[in-house]
């Protein structure tokens, strides 16, 4: 047997100094030879640890074996037994905390590049543009309403349609995709090539998507079931409610939530203003507050919109950054200035109501708390100002209450998340299921997708027995 490399095959990517000024995808994807060579690194373990780390339990050694044999169709078929959105998850899963974390090779060197291989198999299939078979629905097929066209809703709708249910997705925005369309930027997840394609494949199967439909306002869940003839409902409305820090100065001109900043740019294409009508204000210096994927996306978007200097302000340290490792590395290579262990205490305005600085206090990490996390403590008297024209708050999102507040009988917890059975998605209201960020709080694409699939199976059971 030949000696195996301890390192992953590197991902071809746009050079940092080039990509910092365009919105094209950063990571270019493996070609066939690289994919096969990377697949050869897999040991095809008898008890594959990697699978434990995949929230939907993809048969990783099997699909990798198929890539090694150049049976690329077989590889994607294997993946699709467990996942509905492999081109997306291969790109955005935090692999270093999931499948790749448990790969045995990670003990000695680098794990097998499972995510990159998954993306390769999915992209290769997509590029072939195979026609989608429309589903033939039975005359008396039951109807299911899906609320929200994010990964949870899309996965649920797809599985239900394949089982013969007539599915209508109701989406509040003018574009389907949820965070995949309005949040995660083009340079990480191409919209036309990947996201729109997944959605149009669903439509080709016969899933109806009603855009511009805010459930809770246009119809309530009860109206969908009692007047519009739906036999079951899945709620996948995500965690769309932006949080602010509740510090002075947050309503000054120049302060954005990450949701607004990213929506203006991704969904409304403000980066092509004035050709596209929606403005966005970036300024020369930008501070993004937070350390997760959302913060990295906002910071790198600001850079691409022309900001000269972009800070990440985060109250904990490097180790604690919750973003995908790859995004942190990409952000650093592009020149984002990380100001770790700093916490904003005020946004300082000028006399006309515009941001001129963000006042921060230095933090130090204390002893580990009960959860094992070292909680940050402010260093007294260490306040200082960072001069900026724009501040983007990327400190998390909560659940939007519109659906819950108009659906009697569907319980929520004290944070406002819908209470649902983790295995079935069943809520406390008969016939109503829920999954994704609206249940778990802001999490990941793969978990939302997995929840959508589980709920589809449970809805099938429920309707068969009804």
């Amino acid at each position, binding site marked *: 047997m030949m000696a195996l490399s301890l390192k992953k095959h590197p991902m071809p990517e746009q050079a940092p100094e080039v990509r910092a000024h365009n919105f094209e995808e950063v990571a270019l994807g493996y070609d066939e030879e690289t994919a096969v060579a990377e697949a050869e690194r897999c040991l095809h373990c008898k008890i594959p640890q990697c699978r434990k780390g995949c929230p939907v339990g993809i048969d990783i050694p099997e699909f990798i074996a198929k890539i090694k044999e150049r049976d690329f169709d077989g590889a994607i078929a294997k993946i699709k037994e467990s996942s509905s959105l492999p081109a997306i998850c291969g790109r955005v899963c935090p692999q270093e905390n999931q499948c790749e974390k448990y790969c045995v090779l990670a003990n000695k060197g680098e794990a097998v590049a499972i995510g990159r291989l998954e993306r390769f198999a999915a992209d290769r299939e997509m590029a072939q543009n195979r026609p989608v078979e429309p589903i033939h629905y039975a005359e008396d097929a039951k109807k299911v309403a899906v609320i929200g066209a994010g990964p949870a809703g899309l996965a649920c709708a797809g599985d239900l349609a394949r089982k013969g249910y007539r599915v209508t997705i109701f989406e509040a925005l*003018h574009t389907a995709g949820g965070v995949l369309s309005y949040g995660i930027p083009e340079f990480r997840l191409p919209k036309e090539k990947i996201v729109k394609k997944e959605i149009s494949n669903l439509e080709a199967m016969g899933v109806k998507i009603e855009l511009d439909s805010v459930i809770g306002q246009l119809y309530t869940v009860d109206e969908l079931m009692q007047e519009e003839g739906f036999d079951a409902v899945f709620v996948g409305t995500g965690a769309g409610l932006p949080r602010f820090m509740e510090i002075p100065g947050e309503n000054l001109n120049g302060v954005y939530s990450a949701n607004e900043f990213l929506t203006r740019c991704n969904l409304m294409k403000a980066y092509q203003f004035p050709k596209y*009508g929606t403005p966005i204000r970036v300024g020369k210096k930008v501070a993004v507050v937070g350390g997760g994927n959302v913060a990295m996306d906002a910071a790198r978007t600001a850079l691409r919109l022309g900001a000269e200097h972009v800070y990440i302000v985060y109250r904990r340290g490097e180790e604690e950054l919750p973003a995908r490792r790859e995004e942190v590395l990409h952000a650093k290579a592009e020149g984002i200035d990380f100001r770790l262990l700093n916490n904003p205490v005020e946004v300082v305005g000028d006399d006309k109501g515009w941001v001129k600085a963000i006042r921060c206090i230095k933090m130090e990490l204390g002893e580990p708390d009960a959860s094992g996390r070292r909680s940050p403590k402010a260093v007294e008297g260490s306040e200082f100002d960072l001069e900026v024209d724009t501040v983007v708050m990327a400190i998390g999102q909560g659940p939007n209450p519109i659906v819950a507040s108009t659906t009697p009988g569907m319980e929520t917890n004290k944070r406002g998340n819908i209470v649902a059975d983790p295995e079935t998605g069943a809520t406390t209201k008969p016939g109503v299921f829920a999954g994704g960020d609206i249940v778990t709080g802001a999490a990941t694409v793969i978990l939302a997708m997995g929840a959508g699939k589980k709920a589809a199976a449970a809805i099938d059971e429920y309707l068969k027995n009804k």
Partner: protein
Amino acid sequence: MFKILEKKELSPGVFRMVIDAPRIAKKTQPGQFIIERVDEESERIPLTVADFDREKGTITLIFQAVGASTELLAEKKEGESILNLVGPLGKPSEVAEGIGTVVCIGGGIGVAPVYPIARAMKEAGNKVISIMGARSKEILIMEDEMRAVSDETIVTTDDGTYGIKGFVTTALGQLVERGEKIDRVYAIGPVVMMKSVADATRPLALPTVVSLNPVMVDGTGMCGGCRVQVGTETKFACVDGPEFDGHLVDFNALRTRQGMYRDMEAEAEKEHKCRIGLGRDS
């Protein structure tokens, strides 16, 4: 796509459009609004539903062409369509029987959003006194409609070309002076007008509702761009409002936030004019 069934210029630069939107018409209540997007490249902008006909399945929008997006909408002809229309958005006005005497004040284009509230208040059996303010007689809109739903209608013009010379607050002051027992005031119009009404009614402890118009994007509570300061709290106008207690609103902050894109809006309007200019040449 949403078809424009009727279009009329009510006064220079102010348009009324009746749009085919049965789902929205069925659900809309007074005080609510929609967000529209004319085409793939345009901005999403909020407009109040000025009227709705549940039987015909139509909604009426009344808007003033003030910049790129409203001008683009104004160029659409009868029979043409707009790409996106989402609604109804926001909370409905709190209309109820037995409120008593409601004074409905509309300033300029603000008459359009106050009209369905006045109508609903009247239908619920309240006494409605309407005050309509305009800079000048020829830009006054919807006078007949307002008179038809009001027990009394007072017109004010800044220049005295019609009705009382002065502002809506002048007329409101006269109502108070003559001893009218007022139970609630609705004031919708330019920020300065809403602020002066609120300042006038605060010392009299007259409950005053205003409808706020900050810059919006999604209209579902997702972006937070529409945040307004109400008392000690920050609210999202699109989902918590658009109506708020006028005595608690920080109108100065609202004015500042409305100006966030002023220079870029001018650029967008120039680009828009340029484009239609080009269209004519080719």
